[in-house]
């Protein structure tokens, strides 16, 4: 209401959009929860950033740590910091709406022609193709960016307070034109825009972390909020920041708020103790983020039989050897096993897998499997104890939340004739012995795999290593553009049928492409909007 009072008489469109949701939904949350479930107990509430902070600290491996949460907005706060100790979280200070690093990044996401609240990671992936041409302009004109990581945006350039878009005409004038139309070709301007805002974001995150370190004196940092999904900024923070170690909630966006709210109530409202790691192995309590539903072999078999889809049922060892051999032959494998991942990343249970050594695999996966933009990179899943052979990363990264450089020993000398290439043409350059997971700036968004977290996936990578000498696989989420990650066997069959994956593996069943698979995919007419 204060926002509308500050902007009136402007802001009617936003008011008409927001008020029905507030009056009809958000204010009636307890009643809605009771209608949706059989729950009749007490409903308690946490503030948005309290929930993020709880999701960052309580599952972390640290007994005591600083906490930094950065996102778009929740209630008034857009950024907050504090300290977690044992079963307690305290937040000391915050930044308030509309001054938000998350919304600043979203504004550029909108301006670059991607969808707000889902296209931010595309902007991050686009950034290495560009030059930071607009970095200083952003820092000089769009706000007051302080050394302690706090900021105040110049709201003349933004319209998210009083309109239905993110950026104003003044913003468009500053950056030389209107936003890119969605689905139109990505130009050098968007690449430069992406690189510039990425650098500004990294600068703000680093500054904020240093401030939090000074204020709290803690050795470790826990992070959550949508901005904490920026693995490039996280990687820099790990390498250049003041903290000895960092833990980021794998569902750092608002979905992780559910975990945070539950943990906040459990520890802070009910006062239950929190057990931190006493063995010194420093593992978190997120169960490797495998918190979703799983399906038995009988359930999977029933789905396949109901659709008359032929399959091979295999013992574990045979299955792993078969799949590893297929991967080594550049087959693309849909891999559906165990519990679904919680959060935005597929971590080896709802994944599409490929051979990272193949120079053609990135374009095959982007254009024939996932139907997405050609510039988007893929992530490597590597055995944790072998990660240092391929990447400059000195810690585990089980959630793909840290980008790190591909090690010098894996890099290839680029041919002289490719030196003049710009933009997406740089995709043609083979940069390392793992070209499909090496981004144009030699970075990779790494998942390290520990056998204790996911024995089957670990053993598959090991089987691939035994054939190829390479303990790395491409791991991308099992979905196509615009769709959520597959959850159940029906989803997996449908997604498999609609792409050009070579084989689907669900539980102990290996499903090759067949007419029956295609019929099963065609019978489901659901079409989702592109993201």
């Amino acid at each position, binding site marked *: 209401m204060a926002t509308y*009072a500050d902007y*009136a008489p402007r802001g009617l469109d936003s008011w008409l959009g927001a008020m029905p949701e507030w009056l009809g939904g958000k204010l009636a949350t307890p009643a809605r929860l009771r209608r949706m479930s059989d729950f009749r107990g007490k409903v308690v509430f946490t503030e948005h950033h309290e929930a993020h902070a709880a999701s960052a600290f309580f599952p972390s491996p640290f007994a005591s740590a600083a906490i930094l949460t950065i996102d778009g907005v929740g209630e008034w706060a857009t950024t907050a910091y504090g300290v977690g100790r044992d079963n307690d979280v*305290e937040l000391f*200070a915050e930044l308030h709406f509309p001054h938000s690093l998350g919304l600043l990044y979203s504004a550029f996401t909108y301006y670059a022609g991607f969808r707000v609240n889902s296209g931010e990671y595309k902007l991050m992936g686009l950034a290495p193709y560009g030059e930071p041409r607009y970095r200083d302009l952003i820092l000089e004109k769009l706000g007051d960016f302080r050394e302690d990581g706090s900021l105040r945006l110049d709201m003349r350039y933004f319209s998210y307070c009083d309109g239905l878009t993110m950026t104003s005409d003044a913003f468009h004038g500053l950056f030389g034109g209107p936003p890119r139309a969605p689905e139109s070709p990505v130009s050098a301007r968007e690449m430069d825009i992406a690189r510039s805002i990425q650098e500004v974001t990294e600068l703000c995150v680093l500054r904020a972390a240093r401030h939090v370190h000074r204020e709290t004196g803690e050795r470790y940092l826990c992070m959550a909020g949508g901005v904490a999904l920026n693995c490039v900024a996280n990687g820099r923070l790990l390498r250049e920041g003041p903290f000895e170690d960092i833990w980021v909630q794998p569902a750092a966006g608002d979905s992780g708020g559910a975990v945070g709210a539950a943990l906040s109530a459990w520890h802070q409202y009910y006062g239950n103790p929190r057990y931190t790691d006493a063995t010194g192995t420093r593992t978190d309590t997120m169960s490797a983020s495998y918190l979703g539903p799983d399906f038995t072999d009988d359930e999977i078999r029933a789905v396949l039989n109901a659709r008359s889809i032929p399959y091979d049922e295999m013992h574990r060892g045979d299955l792993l050897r078969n799949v590893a051999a297929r991967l080594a032959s550049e087959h693309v494998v849909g891999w559906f096993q165990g519990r679904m991942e919680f959060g935005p990343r597929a971590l080896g249970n709802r994944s599409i897998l490929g051979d990272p050594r193949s120079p053609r695999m990135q374009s095959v996966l982007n254009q024939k499997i996932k139907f997405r933009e050609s510039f988007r990179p893929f992530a490597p899943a590597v055995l944790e104890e072998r990660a240092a052979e391929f990447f400059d990363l000195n810690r585990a990264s089980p959630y793909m939340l840290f980008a790190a450089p591909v090690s010098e020993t894996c890099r290839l000398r680029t041919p002289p004739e490719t030196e003049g290439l710009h933009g997406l043409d740089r995709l043609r350059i083979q940069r390392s012995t793992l070209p499909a997971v090496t981004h144009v700036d030699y970075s990779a968004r790494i998942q390290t795999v520990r056998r204790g977290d996911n024995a089957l996936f670990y053993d598959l990578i090991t089987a691939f290593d035994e054939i190829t000498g390479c303990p790395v696989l491409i791991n991308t989420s099992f979905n196509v553009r615009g769709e959520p990650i597959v959850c159940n066997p029906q989803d997996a069959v449908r997604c498999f049928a609609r792409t050009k994956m070579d084989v689907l593996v669900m539980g102990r069943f290996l499903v090759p492409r067949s007419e029956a698979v295609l019929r099963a995919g065609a019978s489901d007419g659901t079409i989702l909007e592109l993201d």
Partner: protein
Amino acid sequence: MERYLNLTSAFGNSPAPLMCASLLFVTAAALGRRRRDWAWTAALGGVAVAGLGIAGRRAPAVIETACDTALAGTFYAALPAAAAVVRALGYDPLQRRSAPRDSYWIPRYYTKQTREQFERAS
């Protein structure tokens, strides 16, 4: 509301045109028999049924328009005046107009939620 929507959509689906046609026939017959009172009654009934039919067919849009109109009325009735007061008092709730500061971090009034705050909306 759902019951209302069901009722109006039932009206809008098919009975209204049929009822209108019937009442038009009754009106014509009454005029033929020089029964003006019957004719007036049937004609007014036809108009009413037609109006209800049209409203019923467009009920969601009508309700949405009515709600939007009410919300817009509320917006213009209350918020510009509130904005004027806010500005006159020099209050800057969004920190848009205040002078630059060394830091924009805002200390929290309370560093962690109390039991009452956990329970505030339950």
